[in-house]
C-alpha cells in the first residue's frame, strides 16, 4: 500500500489534490459538515462561481461549515482506489463519507457519470435506496437540476433554482433535525427543494408519464441579488484554473429570450447589482487574490444597464495594472468603449444562425447590419481574429440557412478588406454546435437531429464554408446526442447512467474519455430506446420535469413555440413585458 504522498509523486499535477490554496475559507469541523463537489477536474471546478457562493452561504450559518472536493483525474482516482484511500475534501482532507451532506454542482449533463465516480471513490453507495442513516445526504443543484429525473435515483434531494436562501435554510434545518427521514420530509417545505423519494412520476402502460405523486416543486428565487451573499474573496488555484481571474456577477438572468437558450428561461427574472456594490466586490477580490483580471459575468453583460458607469468606476478604483474582461457581449451592443476596455486579441460573436429567417425563428434579435456594424467597429480598433458561433439542427433549418453562414463570413471579409488600418491577415474561426433541445425552453418539444441529417449538414458545411483564413470546427455528434438524451430524460435513464459508469464511463465531457460504444451498450442492456428521447415530443404529453414550476408558464413556452414556427420575433423583456409568467416577481415591472 502506498501513502498519499507516495501516490502524489506518481500522478500528473499533484497540486490539484493538496488543498491549502491561498484564500481558501478558514473552516473546522462543525455540527453540520457540508462538502460541495464539482464533478470535473480541479482547473474547471476552480473556475465555477456557483460552488463558491454555496460554500459562502453555508459557512455563514452558525454551527455549519462547507468544504470542497473536485473529481480526481483518472490516474489519481485509480491510485486512491487501489490503495483504499477514500476520496477526501481539499480543505480539511476529511473523507467525503464523514460529511453530513455532500452536494454536487450539476453544470452539464455529461458530468453525471463523474458524480458516480466520485461517490464510488468516496465509498458512498451510489443509489440513494442503498444508503444508510450513517451515509451522507447526497444533494444536487445547478442548471441541470431543472430536470433532475435522469439522476433522481442517485440523489436524496435537489435544490432547484437559486441557492442563496434555500441552501441556508437546508443547513439550518439539518442542524435542527435528528434523522434523515425527518430532514427529507421537512426539507420539502423549503422553496426549491425536491426529494425524489417523496415526489415521483406515474407511468401508464405505454411507459408515458401521466402525472406525479407528491408535492410539486417551486423553483427557489433570490430576488434581492444586491444584498445576496457573494464571496469577497476567492480561492486561488495551486494549478492555473481555466478562468484564472476574479469574477463578479453583474446580473442574473437575461432579457433576450432566445428560444433555444435554457439559461435565458430558467434564470428569469433578470436581477442586477449596483455599480457601488460591484466595484467594492471587485476591489476586494483583486486585493485578496492578487488576480490581474476581473471578469464581469452574466448571461448578456452588454445588457447591464449601468455597464459604462461600472467600467468607469472599475477603472478609477482598481489597481492600475488590472484588466477587465467582458465575456458575453452581443454583436449589436458592441462599441468602442467596451472594446477599448478589453484586450484586443480576439472577439467572439454568436449570430447562432446563418439567415435572418432562422434568427427570427430562434428569437435572436440580430440583423446582418448589426453584424456589419459590429465588425466595422472591431476592425477599426485593431481586431483581426473573429470567432463566430453557430448552431446546426435548429427547428425549421434548411441547407440555405447553413449556406447563409458563408454569406456572413463573406460580409465580414469584405468589411475587413475596406479597413485601411489592417495590419494582419483576418482570421475567422467558425464553431458549429449541434442544437440540443432543453427543458423549459420553447424548443423543449423539438426533435434532436438524426445522425443522417448531421452527416448531410456537415457535407453542406464542407462544401460552403471552407475558405482561406476560415477555420471551421464542430461538435462530436455522439456527445451532443447523449447530452440531448440526458437533458430531456426521465427516471428510466438512471439505470443506463449506472450501467455506463460500471462499464467505465466517466469524464464524458473529455473527448479522450468519451466512449460511445460503452454508452450504446448501456442503453441496449437496459432496454432503453435512445430515439424516444430524441424525437419530437407531443405537446399534450406530460414532460418528466413538469412537476417543477420554474416560474415561466407552459402557456408562454407554447406561445413562443408557435411564434417560432411562424418565424416571428418576440424580442426581449426590455421592449415590454411578454407575459412569461413571472409577473409579480419580475424586477423590471
Amino acid at each position, binding site marked *: 500500500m502506498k501513502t498519499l504522498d507516495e501516490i502524489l509523486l506518481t500522478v500528473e499535477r499533484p497540486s490539484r*489534490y*493538496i488543498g491549502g*490554496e491561498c484564500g481558501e475559507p478558514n473552516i473546522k469541523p462543525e455540527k453540520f459538515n457540508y462538502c460541495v463537489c464539482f464533478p470535473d477536474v480541479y482547473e474547471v471546478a476552480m473556475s465555477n462561481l456557483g460552488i463558491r457562493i454555496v460554500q459562502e452561504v453555508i459557512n455563514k450559518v452558525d454551527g455549519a461549515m462547507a468544504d470542497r472536493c473536485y473529481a480526481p483525474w483518472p490516474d489519481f482516482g485509480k491510485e486512491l482506489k487501489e490503495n483504499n484511500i477514500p476520496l477526501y475534501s481539499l480543505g480539511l482532507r476529511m473523507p467525503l463519507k464523514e460529511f453530513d451532506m455532500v452536494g454536487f454542482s450539476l453544470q452539464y449533463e455529461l458530468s453525471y457519470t463523474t458524480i458516480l465516480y466520485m461517490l464510488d471513490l468516496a465509498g458512498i453507495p451510489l443509489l440513494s435506496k442503498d444508503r444508510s442513516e450513517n451515509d451522507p445526504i447526497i444533494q444536487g443543484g445547478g442548471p441541470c437540476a431543472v430536470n433532475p429525473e435522469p439522476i433522481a435515483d442517485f440523489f436524496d434531494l435537489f435544490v432547484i433554482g437559486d441557492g442563496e436562501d434555500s441552501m441556508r435554510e437546508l443547513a439550518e434545518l439539518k442542524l435542527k433535525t435528528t434523522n434523515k427521514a425527518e430532514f427529507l420530509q421537512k426539507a420539502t417545505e423549503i422553496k426549491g427543494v425536491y426529494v425524489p423519494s417523496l415526489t415521483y412520476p406515474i407511468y401508464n402502460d405505454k411507459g408515458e408519464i401521466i402525472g406525479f405523486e407528491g408535492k410539486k416543486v417551486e423553483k427557489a428565487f433570490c430576488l434581492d441579488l444586491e444584498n445576496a451573499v457573494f464571496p469577497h474573496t476567492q480561492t486561488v488555484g495551486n494549478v492555473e484554473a481555466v478562468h484564472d481571474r476574479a469574477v463578479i456577477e453583474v446580473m442574473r438572468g437575461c432579457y433576450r429570450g432566445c428560444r433555444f437558450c435554457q439559461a435565458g428561461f430558467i434564470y428569469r427574472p433578470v436581477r442586477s447589482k449596483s455599480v457601488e456594490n460591484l466595484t467594492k466586490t471587485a476591489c476586494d477580490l483583486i486585493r485578496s487574490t*492578487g488576480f490581474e483580471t476581473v471578469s464581469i459575468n452574466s448571461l448578456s453583460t452588454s445588457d447591464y444597464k449601468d455597464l459604462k458607469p461600472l467600467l468607469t468606476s472599475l477603472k478609477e478604483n482598481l489597481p492600475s495594472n488590472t484588466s477587465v474582461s467582458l465575456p458575453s457581449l452581443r454583436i449589436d451592443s458592441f462599441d468602442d468603449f467596451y472594446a477599448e476596455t478589453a484586450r484586443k486579441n480576439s472577439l467572439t460573436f454568436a449570430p447562432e444562425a446563418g439567415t435572418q429567417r432562422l434568427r427570427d425563428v430562434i428569437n435572436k434579435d440580430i440583423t446582418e447590419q448589426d453584424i456589419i456594424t459590429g465588425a466595422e467597429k472591431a476592425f477599426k480598433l485593431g481586431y483581426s481574429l473573429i470567432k463566430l458561433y453557430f448552431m446546426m439542427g435548429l427547428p425549421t433549418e434548411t441547407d440555405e440557412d447553413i449556406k447563409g453562414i458563408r454569406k456572413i463570413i463573406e460580409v465580414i471579409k469584405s468589411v475587413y478588406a475596406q479597413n485601411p488600418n489592417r495590419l494582419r491577415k483576418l482570421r475567422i474561426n467558425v464553431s458549429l454546435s449541434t442544437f440540443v433541445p432543453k427543458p423549459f425552453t420553447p424548443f423543449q418539444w423539438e426533435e434532436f437531429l438524426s445522425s443522417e441529417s448531421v452527416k448531410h449538414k456537415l457535407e453542406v458545411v464542407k462544401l460552403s464554408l471552407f475558405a482561406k483564413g476560415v477555420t471551421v470546427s464542430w461538435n462530436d455528434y455522439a456527445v451532443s446526442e447523449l447530452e440531448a438524451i440526458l437533458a430531456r430524460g426521465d427516471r428510466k435513464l438512471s439505470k443506463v447512467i449506472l450501467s455506463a459508469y460500471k462499464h467505465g464511463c466517466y469524464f464524458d465531457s473529455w473527448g479522450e474519455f468519451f466512449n460511445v460504444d460503452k454508452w450504446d451498450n448501456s442503453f441496449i442492456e437496459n432496454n432503453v430506446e435512445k430515439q424516444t428521447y430524441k424525437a419530437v415530443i407531443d405537446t399534450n404529453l406530460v414532460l418528466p420535469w413538469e412537476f417543477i414550476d420554474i416560474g415561466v408558464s407552459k402557456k408562454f413556452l407554447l406561445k413562443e413555440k408557435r411564434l417560432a414556427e411562424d418565424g416571428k420575433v418576440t424580442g426581449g423583456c426590455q421592449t415590454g413585458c411578454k407575459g412569461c409568467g413571472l409577473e409579480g416577481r419580475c424586477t423590471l415591472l
Partner: protein
Amino acid sequence: MKLIKYSKTNGAEFIPHLDTLRHFIKTVRRMDIPINYSNGFHPHMLVYMSSPIALGLKSTSEYCLFDTDYNGEDFQELFNKNSLKGIRCLEVFDTNKKLNVANDITFAVYEINGVNLFDVNEVISRESFEVFDKRANTLKDVRDRIKDLHFEGETLYATLCFGNYTLRPDYLVEALVKTYGGNHPTVLKKDVLFLDGLTAKEYVELKNSEKV
C-alpha cells in the same frame, strides 16, 4: 531589490515551478508593494527564481529575487501574511544587484532519512558512483557531483552539485537504498551554497560589494 529564502513544504512541494512563479506574482500583488515590470509589449513582473527542484521534494532553502523598491522592514511578515502556509519566507536579503540565483547556486545540502547506515568514506573514496537516470533511461556515473556525505545519527546529509551540473537527490537515494537498504526514504533540501561554497549572506555581501 529583495532576495528571499523561502520554504516549500506542507504540500507546496507538489506545486510545480511555473505555478510557484505565478503564486509569487499574485503574492506580490496581494502585498500591495511597488514592484518593477519589464518594458515589453506585455509587461511582466520582474521576479527571478532559483532553478526548479523536482516535484515533491520538500525544501527549506529556495531563493527568489524581487525587483522592488520597497524599503519596509516588514517585507517578510507581509509576504508570509499573503502567501501559502507551505511557502514561507524565512529570510530577506537586501541587494542592489540583479542576482542570478539560478546560476550562482552551485551546491545543495539534502537531509535524507530512511536510508540504512553505511560507510560513507567508502563511497566517497570510490572513483565512480553510478545512479540510474530515469529521464535518460541509463546508468550515469555521478561521483564528481557528490561533494560530501555524512551521517548525523541516522540522518544522512548529502552535499550534491546543483544548477547546471545537478544531481537529483532521489537518484542518489534510490542507488543507496538499492545497495544498502532503507525504508520509505524522505528527502529535504536543507540548504544551498553559492559559487564556491558561500552562504547566502556571504554571497549577497560579495555581490553587493562588487563594482558594476
